[in-house]
């Protein structure tokens, strides 16, 4: 029944907005913080605040659809005997079996393999479906060590030591009991149905000096064959990247605060860490400062959605990017075909973020067998592949417009910033000026 009162003149408080009032009421009712999935929702400077200049009098563009623009990237060239080569500079980020259904993990492997890139395990170990359908699989080495074993370690094409995650740097995780099926419980060596804590720090090392020895141990166990990545959540990025290099990383992965999670406190997601934009610049600075840029490869992640994001990250100096949330959406997360069920869960398509609950109508962030069956791994894998191809084409389009025969030849000088904040964070001049706030050196 519509209100008979004229509310058009009412002024909403900027401090106590409707969502804020709703959250206070929820907290008063439930007595506990809100836990949800996905990444930061707040407005922050992003790659959208940068623009490419394109070719002009002083730049010579490449012909679209005709002249080649290389997208292949090799990762792990520093120490590994077998670096991995990916056909597109876009990889699939680590997401666990447990957080995601087996069908979703299989689909990610299928999609990544179809376009010649890598996918990544997550907390909970490696499933045969994922290994079987992933030509290139990165095995995460996490604090919980759920499912960790040397046989799977040796089956991996690369190892990613996870120190932190952009959505929750400094935080662990909790896979709620309702997502602990028999299979998940067995893989994690815990009883079915109980909440499973993922530790926030590793159990057997406490700092970068220890980590250096840990990395050597992993190399010894795998006979120095595969690359070792170190992943950090974006915080003190300059120092973290330098310490990761010192610890012996072949590849450093920096995950900005927009990076997704399966289950974390909203207060953590929104208030800890820094955006991907400044983190990328800090990471590149750190590598250049050590003379290791390109020798140690850099992967950035957190809020990558389009080929424009990919191209801008590469132009700032990254070697590749990772996608997580976008890949879930590509598979069918938040699809309008499930609208009625989203409504039943108190939300609507486009806003569903209760990935921790295990009731995902799309069959992706669930362990419910009936819901999981809804996701066709072949179809979802095809969607992931299509999406990755689209991102790659967009990246190439922008690189050709800037006259680059290789997407990694994009450079900061190809871009301008739209806002003062983005200019300062990315160290890219404000459009129409040669001004970078806080920077007095030569651009």
């Amino acid at each position, binding site marked *: 029944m519509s209100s008979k009162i004229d509310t058009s003149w009412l002024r909403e408080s900027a401090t106590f907005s409707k969502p804020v009032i709703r959250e206070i009421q929820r907290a008063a009712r439930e007595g506990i913080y809100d836990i949800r999935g996905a990444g930061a929702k707040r407005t922050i400077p992003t790659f959208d605040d940068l623009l490419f200049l394109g070719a002009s009098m002083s730049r010579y563009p490449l012909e679209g659809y005709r002249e080649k623009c290389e997208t292949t990237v090799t990762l792990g060239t520093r120490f590994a005997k077998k670096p991995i080569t990916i056909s597109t500079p876009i990889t699939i980020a680590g997401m666990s079996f447990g957080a995601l259904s087996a069908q979703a993990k299989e689909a990610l492997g299928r999609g990544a393999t179809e376009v010649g890139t890598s996918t990544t395990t997550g907390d909970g170990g490696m499933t045969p479906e994922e290994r079987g359908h992933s030509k290139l699989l990165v095995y995460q080495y996490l604090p919980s060590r759920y499912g960790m074993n*040397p046989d799977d370690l040796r089956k991996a094409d690369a190892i990613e030591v996870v120190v932190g995650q952009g959505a929750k740097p400094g935080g662990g995780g909790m896979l709620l*009991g309702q997502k602990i099926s028999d299979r998940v419980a067995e893989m994690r060596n815990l009883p079915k149905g109980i909440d499973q804590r993922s530790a926030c720090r590793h*159990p057997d090392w406490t700092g970068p000096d220890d980590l250096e020895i840990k990395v050597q*141990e992993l190399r010894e166990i795998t006979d120095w064959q595969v690359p070792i990545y170190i992943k950090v959540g974006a915080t003190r990025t300059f120092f973290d990247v330098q310490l990761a290099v010192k610890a012996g990383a072949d590849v450093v992965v920096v995950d900005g605060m927009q990076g997704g999670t399966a289950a974390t406190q909203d207060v953590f997601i929104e208030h800890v860490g820094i955006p991907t934009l400044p983190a990328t610049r800090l990471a590149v600075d750190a590598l250049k400062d050590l003379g290791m840029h390109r020798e140690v490869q850099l992967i950035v992640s957190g809020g990558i959605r389009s080929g424009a994001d990919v191209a801008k990250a590469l132009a700032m100096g990254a070697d590749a990017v990772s996608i997580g949330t976008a890949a879930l959406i590509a598979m069918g997360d938040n699809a309008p075909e499930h609208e009625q069920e989203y409504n039943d869960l108190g939300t609507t398509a486009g806003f569903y973020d209760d990935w921790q609950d295990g009731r995902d109508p799309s069959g992706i962030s669930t362990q419910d067998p009936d819901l999981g069956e809804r996701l066709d791994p072949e179809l979802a894998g095809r969607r992931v592949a299509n999406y990755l191809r689209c991102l790659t084409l967009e990246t190439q389009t922008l690189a050709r417009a800037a006259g680059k025969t290789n997407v990694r030849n994009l450079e900061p000088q190809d871009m301008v910033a739209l806002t003062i904040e983005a200019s300062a964070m990315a160290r890219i001049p404000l459009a129409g000026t040669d001004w970078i706030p806080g920077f007095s050196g030569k651009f």
Partner: protein
Amino acid sequence: MREFDLQNAEVRLLNQALHGSDLAGQSIEVVNPGGKHNVAAGAQFETQVDIRGHVGYYCAGMNQNARITVHGNAGPGLAENMMSGSVTVKGNASQYCGATAHGGLLIVEGDAAARCGISMKGVDIVVGGSIGHMSAFMAQSGRLVICGDAGESLGDSIYEARIYLRGEPTSLGTDCIEKPMETEHIEELKDLLNKAGIKHDPAEFKRYGSARKLYNFQVDNVGAY
């Protein structure tokens, strides 16, 4: 018998050999370990490895099947994530020995430092002496036997692992409680002590484990953390 002298040879050479089947069933003697790290990491086959001296970090990490004896002391992370086989230390072990280990038997004849058996996932650990603080933190399964005393917060946030303690804990961690010693526990403990070659009367031990009150998060329990 094959000998590796780590004064002259890299640890890499030893580990590479332990990852191949050529030495399966053989005895390996490692001399002059000199506190080096990652000695005998990732061993895969049923070999007897005797290390004559002290080792650094992560000795016998992720061991599978091998029987490894350190005739000295061991640095941090001894037998971390061990899957099977056995690791014995004649001296003392530093922090996090047996961390996240899934199986096998770890014997520390001396003392073990802090976080012994942290996040253990099925391993059996027998310590002849005492252990440090936060041992068996988030221990998931397996058995931890301590013939001496235990430091602060023993078994904090423990899941289904069982702890047998002969001495006294400085304190118990969150959700860790003393439990009755039934006949099955006496028998289980007797078997573990026998395997470790340590002589004590099982009746002198107390058993500790999870109260299981924190298995599913409830807001009323936040004061426990």
